[in-house]
């Protein structure tokens, strides 16, 4: 018999890569042909960096089990760092931009460690408050520094972000975080979420892994910030307030804490939803908040709970389902 099951990991990778490429190809073609107009394409890009933000926050919230309320702070640090980098240099975009994003990510990661080290001594709501506090401090400081442009923010960045590079970075983020989770490092992070004392007793250096998870989470938030900065080409410190952090958290919780596919779907959905509700004008936030409350009441663990999507497995299941009636018929 032909082996159609995606049992071997290699074939699963090929399948996933093919699916990602196909998705990219289809969307790209639709944008190029104008089937998706600029409005739609712009939304896709916004959804793209929201996905990066949600997935990266999920690492700290869903997998590490903390409640960070300052993710927008990391995003702003990354956005400013990368914008200052490209504004300060005259380089070829193909070199400059990836470099800028990585620098944005790294600076954010450094902040992640700086904040993580002291903050992680606390837990639960106290940690939440501290991250909230750090987020606000970052915002106020940016507002009062001269090289960040104060309340005017920064502008004049080149519009480097486009569908392709946002797509690539979203895929990278998803790839890195999902592979990370399925490794000894990821298991260590999950163990901390479940029971810190038992994790220590199992030989896991918990402080190291908490800081590490915070840093990785901050890194990708910083990258998303860089993409944002070079998409809108204007940075305004008030964008990165507490409400932005909450917005990202809502994506994570709505999708399901600890479900990457959930974060992707929720980030996408919550980017589109306000746009779909545009016609409702003043009523749209009301509809949005009502939906939020209803989803939580009827699906408290989020749309996907902790479910993690595996394309290979889904395809397998499909084949099994398709084959099942045949077998019956044969018997």
């Amino acid at each position, binding site marked *: 018999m032909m082996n159609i099951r995606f049992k071997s990991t290699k074939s699963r990778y090929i399948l996933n890569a093919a699916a990602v490429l196909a998705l990219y190809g289809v969307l790209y073609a639709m944008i190029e042909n104008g089937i998706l107009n600029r409005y739609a394409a712009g939304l896709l890009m916004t959804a793209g960096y929201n996905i990066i933000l949600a997935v990266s926050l999920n690492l700290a919230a869903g997998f590490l089990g903390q409640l960070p309320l300052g993710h927008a702070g990391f995003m702003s640090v990354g956005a400013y760092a990368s914008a200052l980098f490209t504004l300060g240099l005259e380089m070829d975009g193909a070199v400059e931009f990836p470099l800028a994003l990585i620098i944005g990510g790294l600076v954010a990661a450094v902040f992640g460690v700086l904040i993580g080290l002291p903050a992680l*001594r606390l837990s639960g*709501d106290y940690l939440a408050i501290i991250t909230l*506090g750090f987020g606000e401090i970052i915002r106020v*400081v940016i507002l009062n520094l001269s090289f960040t442009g104060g309340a005017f923010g920064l502008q004049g960045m080149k519009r480097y972000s486009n569908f392709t590079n946002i797509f690539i970075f979203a895929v990278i983020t998803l790839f890195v975080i999902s592979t990370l989770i399925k490794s000894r490092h990821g298991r260590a992070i999950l163990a901390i979420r479940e029971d810190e004392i038992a994790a220590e007793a199992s030989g896991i250096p918990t402080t190291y892994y908490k800081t590490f998870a915070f840093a990785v989470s901050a890194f990708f938030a910083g990258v998303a910030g860089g993409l944002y900065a070079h998409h809108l080409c204007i940075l305004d410190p008030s964008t990165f307030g507490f409400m932005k952090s909450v917005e990202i958290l809502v994506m994570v919780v709505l999708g399901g804490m600890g479900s990457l596919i959930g974060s992707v779907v929720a980030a996408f959905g919550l980017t589109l939803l306000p746009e779909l509700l545009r016609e409702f004008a003043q009523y749209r936030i*009301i509809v949005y908040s009502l939906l939020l409350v209803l989803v*939580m009441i009827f699906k408290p663990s989020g749309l996907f709970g902790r479910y993690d999507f595996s394309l290979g497995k889904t395809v397998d299941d499909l084949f099994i389902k398709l084959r099942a009636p045949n077998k019956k018929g044969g018997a």
Partner: protein
Amino acid sequence: MTLLSQIINGIQIGSIYALVALGYSMVYGIVKLINFAHGEIIMVGAYCAWYLIARLNMPAWIAVFFAILLCVILGVTIEIVAYKPLRNSARISLLITAIGISLLLQNLAQLLFKADPRMFANLFPGSKPFLGLQLTNATLVTIAVSVVLMAALSLMVSKTKIGKAMRAVSEDKAIAELMGINVNTTISFTFAIGSALAAIAAVLYCCSYSQIEPTMGSMLGLKAFVAAVLGGIGIIPGAVLGGFLIGVFESLTKGFISSNLADAVVFGILIVVLLIKPTGIFGKNRREKV
């Protein structure tokens, strides 16, 4: 002299934070929920009092009574409709629901009352001399009310039967029920108290700061929550102390360090305090027994 007057400025806003923080602490104490909608209940209370006084020309005390009543009904309804179904779910789902409710109320108010600010006439005009400075009557009333309420609530929680029920419910709902405690009533009662506190805070806030707008509750709520955490969340005297401290820190920072960086400095102080005393000033450091 400026030092003293800055401290008095701080006490004025601090007494408002204290009153709001009390409401947070009551609710947090029992359901471990950062009730983000608390700020919006304050907003509703403020609009209600304003509407009755300014539009319907009711006497102030009747208006305050109805504001409290409305807030209690609203708070308890929110609890029953939106929070109760989530009692056994992860706390974060509850938090997100609270955020949703807060957005909902804020935007409903914006639809109903438009975004324009309204001014509220001070119910306690005038001021009293104090060490050569002037303390407004509104401030004196706010301080008195928050201290009296703090004492009353502390007594209630430690001495009365319902207080006992509250403590049990906050520890373990299922077991509290096995002790013969009606958990639903206890939680609703707590929300009722929290909301009544919100209404009182709303009126006193308006007396000091006069402005009412749909978004007035969010920052106030956040700062008050920070105050509650600083004092040790869930602990009633802690909320009041935290409120006054945040107010005074804020005012002293604005007065003597930098008014631009005030928020950063206040949060900085909060962080330092929590790193030294991870459960807040009055919080008890309890290590888990293994």
